[in-house]
Protein backbone atom coordinates (compact mmCIF):
# COMPACT_ATOMS: atom_id res chain seq x y z
CA UNK A 1 0.00 0.00 0.00
CA UNK A 2 1.63 3.22 -1.11
CA UNK A 3 0.40 6.07 0.99
CA UNK A 4 3.03 8.66 0.30
CA UNK A 5 4.37 10.02 -2.97
CA UNK A 6 7.47 11.94 -3.81
CA UNK A 7 8.18 14.33 -6.64
CA UNK A 8 11.54 14.93 -8.26
CA UNK A 9 12.24 18.18 -6.45
CA UNK A 10 11.63 16.52 -3.10
CA UNK A 11 13.90 13.66 -4.10
CA UNK A 12 16.68 16.06 -4.98
CA UNK A 13 16.21 18.24 -1.91
CA UNK A 14 16.18 15.27 0.44
CA UNK A 15 19.20 13.54 -1.18
CA UNK A 16 16.85 10.64 -1.69
CA UNK A 17 19.25 8.70 -3.90
CA UNK A 18 22.04 8.72 -1.34
CA UNK A 19 19.64 7.97 1.52
CA UNK A 20 18.18 5.10 -0.48
CA UNK A 21 21.61 3.66 -1.23
CA UNK A 22 22.70 4.12 2.38
CA UNK A 23 19.51 2.44 3.63
CA UNK A 24 18.54 5.47 5.65
CA UNK A 25 14.92 5.52 4.57
CA UNK A 26 11.96 4.15 6.39
CA UNK A 27 9.94 1.50 4.58
CA UNK A 28 7.36 4.11 3.65
CA UNK A 29 9.93 6.59 2.37
CA UNK A 30 11.60 3.83 0.38
CA UNK A 31 8.37 2.84 -1.27
CA UNK A 32 7.53 6.45 -2.08
CA UNK A 33 10.94 6.97 -3.63
CA UNK A 34 10.76 3.70 -5.57
CA UNK A 35 7.38 4.72 -6.90
CA UNK A 36 8.95 7.98 -8.01
CA UNK A 37 12.17 6.73 -9.53
CA UNK A 38 10.47 3.97 -11.52
CA UNK A 39 8.93 6.78 -13.55
CA UNK A 40 11.75 9.34 -13.32
CA UNK A 41 14.62 8.94 -15.76
CA UNK A 42 17.06 11.02 -13.70
CA UNK A 43 16.42 9.28 -10.41
CA UNK A 44 16.30 5.84 -12.03
CA UNK A 45 19.70 6.46 -13.57
CA UNK A 46 21.05 7.90 -10.32
CA UNK A 47 19.90 4.95 -8.24
CA UNK A 48 21.22 2.29 -10.59
CA UNK A 49 24.47 4.16 -11.15
CA UNK A 50 24.91 4.56 -7.41
CA UNK A 51 24.17 0.89 -6.81
CA UNK A 52 26.71 -0.15 -9.44
CA UNK A 53 29.23 2.27 -7.95
CA UNK A 54 28.77 0.67 -4.53
CA UNK A 55 29.03 -2.80 -6.07
CA UNK A 56 32.26 -1.86 -7.83
CA UNK A 57 33.52 -0.33 -4.60
CA UNK A 58 32.70 -3.56 -2.80
CA UNK A 59 34.88 -5.44 -5.28
CA UNK A 60 37.92 -3.22 -4.93
CA UNK A 61 37.56 -2.37 -1.24
CA UNK A 62 39.81 -5.22 0.02
CA UNK A 63 42.54 -4.26 -2.43
CA UNK A 64 42.28 -0.54 -1.59
CA UNK A 65 42.14 -1.26 2.11
CA UNK A 66 45.32 -3.35 1.92
CA UNK A 67 47.03 -0.73 -0.21
CA UNK A 68 46.25 2.10 2.19
CA UNK A 69 47.47 -0.07 5.07
CA UNK A 70 50.92 -0.57 3.53
CA UNK A 71 51.18 2.80 1.82
CA UNK A 72 54.50 4.49 2.52
CA UNK A 73 53.83 8.01 3.75
CA UNK A 74 55.35 10.82 1.76
CA UNK A 75 58.14 12.95 3.28
CA UNK A 76 55.63 15.68 3.99
CA UNK A 77 53.35 13.28 5.83
CA UNK A 78 56.32 12.06 7.85
CA UNK A 79 57.69 15.51 8.56
CA UNK A 80 54.42 17.19 9.41
CA UNK A 81 53.59 15.21 12.58
CA UNK A 82 57.14 15.73 13.85
CA UNK A 83 57.07 19.47 13.22
CA UNK A 84 53.47 19.98 14.22
CA UNK A 85 54.36 18.49 17.60
CA UNK A 86 56.57 21.49 18.24
CA UNK A 87 53.61 23.79 18.13
CA UNK A 88 51.63 22.00 20.80
CA UNK A 89 51.57 23.95 24.09
CA UNK A 90 53.95 21.89 26.21
CA UNK A 91 56.63 21.16 23.59
CA UNK A 92 56.37 24.76 22.35
CA UNK A 93 56.96 26.12 25.86
CA UNK A 94 59.88 23.76 26.42
CA UNK A 95 61.33 24.72 23.05
CA UNK A 96 60.98 28.44 23.85
CA UNK A 97 62.66 27.96 27.23
CA UNK A 98 65.49 26.05 25.59
CA UNK A 99 66.00 28.87 23.10
CA UNK A 100 65.94 31.34 25.97
CA UNK A 101 68.57 29.48 27.97
CA UNK A 102 70.68 29.06 24.85
CA UNK A 103 70.51 32.81 24.24
CA UNK A 104 71.45 33.60 27.83
CA UNK A 105 74.39 31.21 27.75
CA UNK A 106 75.60 32.74 24.49
CA UNK A 107 75.25 36.21 26.02
CA UNK A 108 77.25 35.19 29.06
CA UNK A 109 80.03 33.37 27.23
CA UNK A 110 80.58 35.16 24.00
CA UNK A 111 79.02 38.59 24.00
CA UNK A 112 80.04 39.31 27.57
CA UNK A 113 83.58 38.21 26.84
CA UNK A 114 83.74 40.45 23.79
CA UNK A 115 82.29 43.38 25.71
CA UNK A 116 84.92 42.84 28.35
CA UNK A 117 87.60 42.85 25.73
CA UNK A 118 86.31 46.07 24.18
CA UNK A 119 86.12 47.67 27.61
CA UNK A 120 89.69 46.65 28.37
CA UNK A 121 90.84 48.23 25.13
CA UNK A 122 89.11 51.44 26.09
CA UNK A 123 90.86 51.51 29.47
CA UNK A 124 94.00 53.51 30.13
CA UNK A 125 97.07 51.38 29.51
CA UNK A 126 100.84 51.84 29.54
CA UNK A 127 102.21 52.85 26.17
CA UNK A 128 105.66 51.55 25.20
CA UNK A 129 107.30 53.34 22.31
CA UNK A 130 110.20 51.77 20.48
CA UNK A 131 112.29 53.14 17.72
CA UNK A 132 113.53 50.86 14.99
CA UNK A 133 116.24 52.29 12.87
CA UNK A 134 116.15 51.38 9.22
CA UNK A 135 117.46 48.11 8.03
CA UNK A 136 118.69 45.98 10.83
CA UNK A 137 121.41 43.73 9.67
CA UNK A 138 122.75 42.67 13.02
CA UNK A 139 120.99 41.46 16.13
CA UNK A 140 117.29 42.09 16.37
CA UNK A 141 116.16 44.52 18.99
CA UNK A 142 114.54 42.96 22.04
CA UNK A 143 111.33 44.59 23.16
CA UNK A 144 109.98 43.71 26.60
CA UNK A 145 106.42 44.67 27.47
CA UNK A 146 103.52 43.57 29.61
CA UNK A 147 100.47 41.97 28.03
CA UNK A 148 98.24 44.93 28.75
CA UNK A 149 100.65 47.42 27.20
CA UNK A 150 100.07 49.34 24.03
CA UNK A 151 103.07 48.74 21.80
CA UNK A 152 104.03 51.72 19.66
CA UNK A 153 106.71 51.20 17.08
CA UNK A 154 108.39 53.95 15.19
CA UNK A 155 110.48 53.04 12.18
CA UNK A 156 113.10 55.48 11.09
CA UNK A 157 113.80 55.79 7.39
CA UNK A 158 114.29 58.39 4.69
CA UNK A 159 111.27 58.73 2.44
CA UNK A 160 111.44 59.76 -1.19
CA UNK A 161 111.29 63.29 -2.45
CA UNK A 162 107.64 63.21 -3.34
CA UNK A 163 104.45 62.18 -1.68
CA UNK A 164 104.33 58.45 -2.11
CA UNK A 165 102.06 55.87 -0.60
CA UNK A 166 103.74 53.34 1.64
CA UNK A 167 102.59 50.14 3.23
CA UNK A 168 103.80 48.74 6.55
CA UNK A 169 103.69 44.98 7.10
CA UNK A 170 104.28 43.24 10.40
CA UNK A 171 105.56 39.73 9.74
CA UNK A 172 105.95 36.92 12.19
CA UNK A 173 109.04 34.68 12.39
CA UNK A 174 107.87 32.46 9.57
CA UNK A 175 107.33 35.51 7.32
CA UNK A 176 103.60 35.37 7.65
CA UNK A 177 101.95 38.80 7.46
CA UNK A 178 100.14 39.44 10.72
CA UNK A 179 99.15 43.03 10.05
CA UNK A 180 99.33 45.25 7.02
CA UNK A 181 98.41 48.93 6.83
CA UNK A 182 98.71 51.73 4.28
CA UNK A 183 100.80 54.75 5.27
CA UNK A 184 101.08 58.21 3.89
CA UNK A 185 104.50 59.76 4.42
CA UNK A 186 105.42 63.34 3.55
CA UNK A 187 108.90 64.02 2.00
CA UNK A 188 110.03 65.98 5.05
CA UNK A 189 109.19 63.22 7.53
CA UNK A 190 111.85 60.72 8.54
CA UNK A 191 109.89 58.02 10.29
CA UNK A 192 106.55 56.32 10.47
CA UNK A 193 104.86 54.89 13.54
CA UNK A 194 102.06 52.54 14.37
CA UNK A 195 100.75 51.00 17.54
CA UNK A 196 99.10 47.75 18.49
CA UNK A 197 97.93 46.17 21.77
CA UNK A 198 100.78 43.94 22.85
CA UNK A 199 98.36 41.19 23.78
CA UNK A 200 97.50 40.82 20.08
CA UNK A 201 100.97 39.46 19.46
CA UNK A 202 102.69 36.36 20.70
CA UNK A 203 106.21 36.43 22.03
CA UNK A 204 108.76 35.82 19.29
CA UNK A 205 110.63 37.29 16.37
CA UNK A 206 108.99 39.87 14.14
CA UNK A 207 109.95 41.95 11.15
CA UNK A 208 108.57 45.30 10.11
CA UNK A 209 108.73 45.95 6.39
CA UNK A 210 108.02 49.30 4.83
CA UNK A 211 107.22 49.15 1.14
CA UNK A 212 106.93 52.03 -1.22
CA UNK A 213 104.04 51.58 -3.62
CA UNK A 214 104.95 53.40 -6.83
CA UNK A 215 103.04 53.47 -10.12
CA UNK A 216 105.13 50.74 -11.70
CA UNK A 217 104.22 48.45 -8.83
CA UNK A 218 107.84 48.01 -7.82
CA UNK A 219 108.74 48.55 -4.18
CA UNK A 220 111.72 49.26 -2.12
CA UNK A 221 111.72 47.39 1.14
CA UNK A 222 113.03 48.69 4.40
CA UNK A 223 113.11 46.02 7.09
CA UNK A 224 113.56 46.24 10.82
CA UNK A 225 113.56 43.25 13.11
CA UNK A 226 112.66 42.88 16.76
CA UNK A 227 112.07 40.17 19.29
CA UNK A 228 109.01 40.55 21.45
CA UNK A 229 109.15 39.29 25.01
CA UNK A 230 106.56 39.62 27.75
CA UNK A 231 107.51 40.56 31.25
CA UNK A 232 104.33 39.22 32.87
Amino acid sequence: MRTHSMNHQQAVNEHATERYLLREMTAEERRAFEEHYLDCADCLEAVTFGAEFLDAGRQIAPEMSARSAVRVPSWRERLLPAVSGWFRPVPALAFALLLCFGGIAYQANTIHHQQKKIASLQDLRPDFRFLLTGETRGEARIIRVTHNAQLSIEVEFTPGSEYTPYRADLLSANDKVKYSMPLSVAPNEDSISFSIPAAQLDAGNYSVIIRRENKAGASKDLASKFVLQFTD
Partner: protein
Amino acid sequence: MREPATLVGPAKTRFKALKARPMVYRFPVIAQSPNRQSAATAAVYWGSTATVELYPFNQDYLLRLRARSAETEAHFVEYFNTLLKAKLRSDGYSEAPLSDIRQETLYRVLKAIYLDKIQNPQSLRSFVYGVCERVEWEYDRGEWRQGRDENDEFPNITDERTTADGPARQAELLQTVRWVLERLPEKDRKILIALFMDEKERDEICREFGITRDNLRVLLHRALASARKLLSKGAAS
Protein backbone atom coordinates in the same frame (compact mmCIF):
# COMPACT_ATOMS: atom_id res chain seq x y z
CA MET B 1 20.64 -0.74 -22.10
CA ARG B 2 18.29 -0.66 -25.04
CA GLU B 3 16.15 -3.23 -26.65
CA PRO B 4 15.65 -3.47 -30.39
CA ALA B 5 12.33 -3.09 -32.06
CA THR B 6 13.47 -5.78 -34.43
CA LEU B 7 16.25 -8.27 -34.24
CA VAL B 8 19.42 -7.15 -35.89
CA GLY B 9 20.84 -10.49 -36.91
CA PRO B 10 22.58 -13.40 -35.29
CA ALA B 11 24.79 -12.83 -32.32
CA LYS B 12 28.00 -13.46 -34.28
CA THR B 13 27.17 -10.73 -36.77
CA ARG B 14 26.38 -8.28 -34.01
CA PHE B 15 29.59 -9.13 -32.22
CA LYS B 16 31.58 -8.36 -35.37
CA ALA B 17 29.76 -5.08 -35.72
CA LEU B 18 30.63 -4.27 -32.15
CA LYS B 19 34.28 -5.13 -32.69
CA ALA B 20 34.43 -2.71 -35.59
CA ARG B 21 33.26 0.13 -33.37
CA PRO B 22 35.59 1.83 -30.94
CA MET B 23 35.15 0.36 -27.50
CA VAL B 24 34.93 3.67 -25.71
CA TYR B 25 32.43 3.16 -23.04
CA ARG B 26 30.69 5.92 -21.21
CA PHE B 27 27.96 5.99 -18.69
CA PRO B 28 25.14 8.21 -19.79
CA VAL B 29 24.61 11.67 -18.52
CA ILE B 30 20.92 12.04 -18.82
CA ALA B 31 19.75 14.39 -21.55
CA GLN B 32 23.22 15.81 -22.07
CA SER B 33 24.86 13.73 -24.72
CA PRO B 34 23.88 14.70 -28.26
CA ASN B 35 24.94 11.27 -29.51
CA ARG B 36 22.65 9.51 -27.17
CA GLN B 37 19.43 8.25 -28.64
CA SER B 38 16.34 8.59 -26.57
CA ALA B 39 14.85 5.39 -25.29
CA ALA B 40 11.78 5.94 -27.40
CA THR B 41 13.75 5.86 -30.64
CA ALA B 42 16.39 3.38 -29.60
CA ALA B 43 16.75 0.32 -31.75
CA VAL B 44 20.21 -0.97 -30.98
CA TYR B 45 21.51 -3.19 -28.25
CA TRP B 46 24.90 -1.56 -28.06
CA GLY B 47 23.70 1.59 -26.48
CA SER B 48 26.57 2.42 -24.16
CA THR B 49 24.76 2.41 -20.88
CA ALA B 50 25.39 0.38 -17.79
CA THR B 51 22.68 2.02 -15.80
CA VAL B 52 19.00 1.64 -16.33
CA GLU B 53 17.07 4.03 -18.47
CA LEU B 54 13.40 4.74 -18.39
CA TYR B 55 12.71 2.19 -21.07
CA PRO B 56 9.26 2.55 -22.65
CA PHE B 57 7.83 -0.93 -22.31
CA ASN B 58 4.94 -1.47 -24.68
CA GLN B 59 2.60 -4.14 -25.95
CA ASP B 60 5.07 -5.21 -28.67
CA TYR B 61 7.68 -5.81 -26.02
CA LEU B 62 5.34 -8.08 -24.09
CA LEU B 63 4.40 -9.88 -27.28
CA ARG B 64 8.05 -10.51 -28.04
CA LEU B 65 8.58 -11.83 -24.53
CA ARG B 66 5.62 -14.13 -24.89
CA ALA B 67 7.02 -15.28 -28.20
CA ARG B 68 10.23 -16.15 -26.31
CA SER B 69 12.40 -13.78 -28.31
CA ALA B 70 15.94 -14.43 -27.07
CA GLU B 71 16.98 -10.82 -27.64
CA THR B 72 14.04 -9.43 -25.74
CA GLU B 73 14.43 -11.93 -22.94
CA ALA B 74 18.12 -11.01 -22.62
CA HIS B 75 17.21 -7.34 -22.47
CA PHE B 76 14.49 -8.00 -19.92
CA VAL B 77 16.82 -9.99 -17.67
CA GLU B 78 19.66 -7.50 -17.88
CA TYR B 79 17.40 -4.53 -17.35
CA PHE B 80 15.67 -5.88 -14.28
CA ASN B 81 18.79 -7.54 -12.90
CA THR B 82 20.34 -4.12 -12.46
CA LEU B 83 17.17 -2.57 -11.15
CA LEU B 84 16.43 -5.36 -8.69
CA LYS B 85 20.00 -5.43 -7.44
CA ALA B 86 19.73 -1.74 -6.61
CA LYS B 87 16.45 -2.30 -4.82
CA LEU B 88 17.54 -5.39 -2.92
CA ARG B 89 20.81 -3.79 -1.84
CA SER B 90 18.82 -0.87 -0.53
CA ASP B 91 16.56 -3.30 1.28
CA GLY B 92 19.67 -4.64 3.01
CA TYR B 93 20.07 -8.09 1.45
CA SER B 94 23.49 -9.67 1.18
CA GLU B 95 24.73 -11.40 -1.95
CA ALA B 96 23.19 -14.85 -1.55
CA PRO B 97 19.59 -13.91 -0.67
CA LEU B 98 19.76 -11.03 -3.11
CA SER B 99 20.53 -13.43 -5.92
CA ASP B 100 17.80 -15.87 -4.85
CA ILE B 101 15.16 -13.18 -4.52
CA ARG B 102 16.13 -11.58 -7.81
CA GLN B 103 15.93 -14.84 -9.72
CA GLU B 104 12.67 -15.83 -8.14
CA THR B 105 11.19 -12.43 -8.91
CA LEU B 106 12.19 -12.56 -12.57
CA TYR B 107 10.90 -16.09 -12.83
CA ARG B 108 7.50 -15.12 -11.44
CA VAL B 109 7.25 -12.03 -13.63
CA LEU B 110 8.15 -13.95 -16.78
CA LYS B 111 5.66 -16.61 -15.84
CA ALA B 112 2.97 -13.97 -15.47
CA ILE B 113 3.93 -12.52 -18.85
CA TYR B 114 3.85 -15.92 -20.51
CA LEU B 115 0.42 -16.49 -19.02
CA ASP B 116 -0.66 -13.12 -20.40
CA LYS B 117 -1.48 -11.77 -16.94
CA ILE B 118 0.01 -8.34 -17.51
CA GLN B 119 -2.36 -5.99 -19.22
CA ASN B 120 -0.53 -2.69 -18.86
CA PRO B 121 3.07 -2.84 -20.17
CA GLN B 122 3.78 0.72 -18.99
CA SER B 123 3.50 -0.50 -15.42
CA LEU B 124 5.95 -3.36 -15.93
CA ARG B 125 8.58 -1.80 -13.63
CA SER B 126 6.06 -1.32 -10.83
CA PHE B 127 4.77 -4.82 -11.39
CA VAL B 128 8.28 -6.27 -11.08
CA TYR B 129 8.85 -4.32 -7.86
CA GLY B 130 5.52 -5.51 -6.48
CA VAL B 131 6.45 -9.11 -7.18
CA CYS B 132 9.89 -8.53 -5.68
CA GLU B 133 8.37 -7.21 -2.45
CA ARG B 134 6.12 -10.22 -2.28
CA VAL B 135 9.11 -12.53 -2.69
CA GLU B 136 11.05 -10.53 -0.08
CA TRP B 137 8.11 -10.83 2.29
CA GLU B 138 8.00 -14.59 1.83
CA TYR B 139 11.76 -14.88 2.19
CA ASP B 140 11.83 -12.84 5.39
CA ARG B 141 9.10 -14.96 6.94
CA GLY B 142 10.63 -18.22 5.91
CA GLU B 143 7.70 -18.89 3.63
CA TRP B 144 9.95 -19.32 0.70
CA ARG B 145 8.39 -21.38 -2.01
CA GLN B 146 10.02 -21.34 -5.35
CA GLY B 147 7.37 -21.76 -7.98
CA ARG B 148 9.66 -23.10 -10.63
CA ASP B 149 8.34 -25.95 -12.66
CA GLU B 150 10.90 -28.33 -14.07
CA ASN B 151 8.97 -28.40 -17.33
CA ASP B 152 9.00 -24.62 -17.74
CA GLU B 153 11.36 -23.17 -20.29
CA PHE B 154 12.79 -19.98 -18.92
CA PRO B 155 15.72 -17.90 -20.03
CA ASN B 156 18.89 -18.33 -18.08
CA ILE B 157 18.61 -15.74 -15.32
CA THR B 158 22.15 -15.28 -14.22
CA ASP B 159 23.92 -12.43 -12.55
CA GLU B 160 26.39 -12.11 -15.38
CA ARG B 161 26.01 -9.33 -17.85
CA THR B 162 24.86 -10.66 -21.14
CA THR B 163 26.23 -7.96 -23.40
CA ALA B 164 29.65 -8.36 -24.95
CA ASP B 165 30.85 -5.00 -23.62
CA GLY B 166 29.90 -5.98 -20.06
CA PRO B 167 33.44 -6.84 -18.94
CA ALA B 168 34.84 -3.70 -20.53
CA ARG B 169 32.42 -1.36 -18.85
CA GLN B 170 32.72 -3.24 -15.59
CA ALA B 171 36.50 -2.79 -15.78
CA GLU B 172 36.00 0.88 -16.51
CA LEU B 173 33.70 1.30 -13.55
CA LEU B 174 36.19 -0.44 -11.27
CA GLN B 175 38.94 1.80 -12.57
CA THR B 176 36.77 4.83 -12.02
CA VAL B 177 35.98 3.91 -8.43
CA ARG B 178 39.68 3.30 -7.85
CA TRP B 179 40.48 6.69 -9.36
CA VAL B 180 37.88 8.42 -7.22
CA LEU B 181 39.14 6.73 -4.05
CA GLU B 182 42.78 7.52 -4.77
CA ARG B 183 42.03 11.21 -5.08
CA LEU B 184 40.14 11.46 -1.83
CA PRO B 185 41.76 12.58 1.42
CA GLU B 186 42.85 9.57 3.42
CA LYS B 187 40.08 9.84 5.98
CA ASP B 188 37.36 10.07 3.32
CA ARG B 189 38.88 7.16 1.46
CA LYS B 190 38.84 5.03 4.59
CA ILE B 191 35.23 5.95 5.26
CA LEU B 192 34.15 4.97 1.76
CA ILE B 193 36.11 1.71 1.93
CA ALA B 194 34.41 0.90 5.23
CA LEU B 195 31.10 1.69 3.56
CA PHE B 196 31.91 -0.56 0.60
CA MET B 197 33.03 -3.42 2.81
CA ASP B 198 29.57 -3.39 4.33
CA GLU B 199 30.88 -5.14 7.41
CA LYS B 200 29.87 -2.45 9.85
CA GLU B 201 26.66 -0.61 10.48
CA ARG B 202 26.56 2.91 9.08
CA ASP B 203 26.26 4.37 12.59
CA GLU B 204 29.34 2.44 13.67
CA ILE B 205 31.33 3.82 10.73
CA CYS B 206 30.21 7.34 11.62
CA ARG B 207 31.17 6.86 15.26
CA GLU B 208 34.55 5.41 14.35
CA PHE B 209 35.46 8.30 12.07
CA GLY B 210 33.76 11.01 14.10
CA ILE B 211 31.32 12.08 11.41
CA THR B 212 27.57 12.45 11.16
CA ARG B 213 25.19 10.61 8.86
CA ASP B 214 24.86 13.85 6.92
CA ASN B 215 28.64 13.88 6.36
CA LEU B 216 28.50 10.30 5.13
CA ARG B 217 25.69 11.14 2.73
CA VAL B 218 27.55 14.15 1.37
CA LEU B 219 30.73 12.12 0.98
CA LEU B 220 28.89 9.50 -1.06
CA HIS B 221 27.18 12.22 -3.07
CA ARG B 222 30.53 13.80 -3.96
CA ALA B 223 32.13 10.48 -4.79
CA LEU B 224 29.25 9.65 -7.13
CA ALA B 225 29.47 13.08 -8.72
CA SER B 226 33.23 12.65 -9.28
CA ALA B 227 32.76 9.22 -10.81
CA ARG B 228 29.98 10.47 -13.05
CA LYS B 229 32.05 13.44 -14.16
CA LEU B 230 35.01 11.23 -14.93
CA LEU B 231 32.97 8.71 -16.83
CA SER B 232 31.22 11.40 -18.81
CA LYS B 233 34.66 12.61 -19.92
CA GLY B 234 35.77 9.08 -20.69
CA ALA B 235 38.96 9.76 -18.78
CA ALA B 236 38.91 6.46 -17.06
CA SER B 237 39.42 4.52 -20.23
